């Protein structure tokens, strides 16, 4: 008998508010959290805007030591984990039967850059200075520390790892975790993704390839997926963590079930580290395989959560992929990008988008694509502009696309579905 995997807990830290409810309020009200960068002096950069999280670690229950020694992304993960665990009501009495999987694209890059500046006197010292008093550097150096932080927080002793596939990490981490449950390696996984990339080196490297929007004077409307006037993505930060379980394990303890992780796949375009071919060929394949694994027909998809980063090449690439994979049903399916509201938090966003999909299924509401006022004629699907829409959502497709050429797709369904 196939082991089926369900989600029983959600924790979110996103721009615009801490916690799942604040996040969902922002999305369903169609508000945006993109603004001028305040976390560092961004005045020298081409793009000086981002979707920042107002996060004060000690207000969220972290100790002074955790606030000092953990990277911001790790702090997000621990705080979101606490919300997800409380939400699920899971108590861990078999630590060996619980895994931790954390996705992150850029790990502890903020802490690494801060420490580099100290160790090099702002780039003046080569080789850099070694200070024996700095003992936290290794945990930032290898971001598997994020998985350790979460596992030690909840008391899990099953397999632990960080999945780091760039901007698809948020889907790939959850897909990886679902396999651990399905194969019977563990019964539950605390899984999700986190990134806090708002630091000068990140701005510099995206400036260098003009990937981010320079719409510095109108930050609130700068992230414009599928709009003719879009001109790059807006960086974000955040985290979503989940408790996922084998379905009978969840049912036996009477857990509230948000939905089933029914299918997932990732494929590569083998084309370019940052470029996409317009035909969406590999993303379409990932979608087809995810649908097949889920035993879901293309016509069953009620909502597509798009990657929708707000670059012309992405928007056209995935629009083509949806048409390829779903055929004419793509034209009948609402598609939206929440990056229009909370920016692109690299490896975290895929998990944050899974949270949005689960809440869309719970409330039968499709979050909108904000700032979509002048549709790109090349993008001719129903992108749910500006305002959220009431719509029956039982089956969701969510996709991600990232540097390295990675294309990922996941299918989520309501949990009581009978398999065909």
């Amino acid at each position, binding site marked *: 008998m196939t082991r089926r995997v369900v989600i029983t807990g959600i924790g979110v830290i996103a721009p615009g508010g801490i916690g799942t409810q604040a996040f969902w309020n922002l999305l369903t009200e169609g508000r945006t959290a993109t603004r001028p960068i305040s976390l560092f002096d961004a005045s*020298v950069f081409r793009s000086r805007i981002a979707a920042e999280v107002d996060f004060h670690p000690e207000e969220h229950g972290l100790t002074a030591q955790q606030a000092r020694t953990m990277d911001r992304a790790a702090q997000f993960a621990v705080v979101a984990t606490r919300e997800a665990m409380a939400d699920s009501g899971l108590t861990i009495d078999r630590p*060996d039967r619980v895994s*931790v999987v954390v996705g992150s*694209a850029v*790990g502890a890059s903020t802490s*690494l850059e801060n420490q*580099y*500046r100290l*160790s*090099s006197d*702002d*780039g003046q010292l080569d*080789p*850099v200075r070694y*200070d*024996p008093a*700095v*003992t*936290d*550097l*290794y*945990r*930032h*150096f*290898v*971001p*598997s520390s994020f998985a*350790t932080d979460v*596992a*030690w927080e909840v008391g899990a*002793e099953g*397999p*632990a*790892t*960080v*999945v*780091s596939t*760039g901007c698809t990490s948020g889907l790939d981490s959850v897909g*990886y975790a679902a396999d651990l449950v399905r194969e019977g390696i563990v019964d539950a996984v605390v899984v999700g993704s986190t990134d806090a990339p708002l630091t*000068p*080196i990140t701005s*510099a*490297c*995206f400036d260098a*390839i003009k990937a981010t929007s320079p719409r510095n004077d109108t930050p609130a409307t700068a992230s414009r997926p599928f709009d003719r006037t879009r001109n790059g993505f807006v960086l974000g930060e955040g985290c979503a963590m989940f408790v996922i379980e084998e379905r009978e394990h969840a049912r036996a303890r009477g857990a509230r079930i948000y939905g089933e992780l029914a299918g997932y*796949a*990732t*494929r*590569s*375009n*083998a*084309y370019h*580290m*940052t470029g996409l071919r317009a035909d969406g060929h*590999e993303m379409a394949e990932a979608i087809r395989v995810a649908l097949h694994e889920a035993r879901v027909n293309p016509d069953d998809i009620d909502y597509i959560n798009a990657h929708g980063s707000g670059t012309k090449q992405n928007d056209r690439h995935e629009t083509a992929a949806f048409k390829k994979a779903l055929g004419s049903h793509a034209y009948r399916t609402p598609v939206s990008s929440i990056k229009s509201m909370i920016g692109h938090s690299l490896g975290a966003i895929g998990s944050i988008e899974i949270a949005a999909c689960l809440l869309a299924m719970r409330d039968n509401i499709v979050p909108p694509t904000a700032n979509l006022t002048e549709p790109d004629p090349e993008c001719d699907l129903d992108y749910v502009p500006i305002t959220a829409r009431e719509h029956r959502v039982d089956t969701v497709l969510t996709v991600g696309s*990232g*540097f*390295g*050429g*990675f294309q990922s797709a996941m299918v989520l369904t309501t949990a009581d579905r009978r398999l065909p």
Partner: protein
Amino acid sequence: MTTTVVTGLGVIAPTGLGVDDYWKATLEGRNGIAPITKFDASGYPSSLAGQVVGFHAADHLPGRLLPQTDHMTRMALAAAQWAWDDAGLDPAQLPEFSAGVVTASSSGGYEFGERELRNLWAKGASYVSAYQSFAWFYAVNTGQISIRHQMRGPTGVLVSDQAGGADAIAHARRQIRKGARVMLAGGVDSSLCSWGWIAHLASGRVSTADDPRRAYLPFSADARGHVPGEGGALLVLEEETAARARGARIYGVVAGHAATLDPPPGSGRPSTLEAALRGALADADVHPDEVDVVFCDGAAIPELDRIEAAAINAVFGEGAVPVTVPKTMTGRLFSGAVALDAAAALLSIRDGVIPPTINATAAPDLGLDLVTETPRSLPVRIALIVARGIGGFNSALVLRAA
């Protein structure tokens, strides 16, 4: 259940470039640990490393790839090509979506990252390379390999400190079981630059010895930490029937894997390493008596060595199985470590010989049968590889003869 076999090896190590060089040096007990020449390490408390010597990227890669790749990625791309050559396969000739790649990573393209951080802070934002956005991040090797070899199948990147290589190989086996025709899996790593070096030193685990023969001594009474190294290996994995149908040479079977995480220090709960070992054997359906050799993690930190010896003795009985740490020739290669040990184990199976743990002398109270100084000839059918990472990661891999 699908059987996953290894049909190709690409090795890049401080002791040799390519399988043949590496294995010859390993059986000769050549020490790849030496004073660091890649950067000025003279001012640091430790200045020994296992450096890959004689690798000139321009000899192996097209020129256009050089400006966009870190040293680690260049070595990974070379190792990938060697692995495909060794397997006699060109993934670009296979049906699309049938070949994929999973790599372990630990610190990404760190030397590249250091240079661009220096450019940013010493010169200004406009001096940062247009390639920084993907040359540093952890997924870079998987991405670059998939592009170079036209592999559109499933991909993955796992970070579990030094245990990650085992997890990557196991995840690639999972993709074979799901129907991928062929997978490349393993890890190639390097962070031998000054900015990486101070991170290694911050772990508190790097030996401060200055004699290359006395610096990395796992399971020895005078164990005093490890020596970092660079390099690793990539393995070609295939489903057995398909491999046999094309007449492939088969090194062995990826038979079992398990991973655990240790509880936090001070929790009063015991290490979970033994559970990882038992889990991998159970996954492989192998009884401890059938195991011919254990490739140990060999942290060379007395407390960690004791825990590892206790776990091995609990599973196999005291001194009941030969154990070895060929890492003493290369240093610890982080995300490259397990894949290199896996290559060594498969070559042990092929040749019936266990490579030595040079320089070390087993502390008698640990109760291990450590193969020291010279190789030991005996038939090897089943090997267990033990890997541990900072942060409590334990991973174990069982390889057996086909």
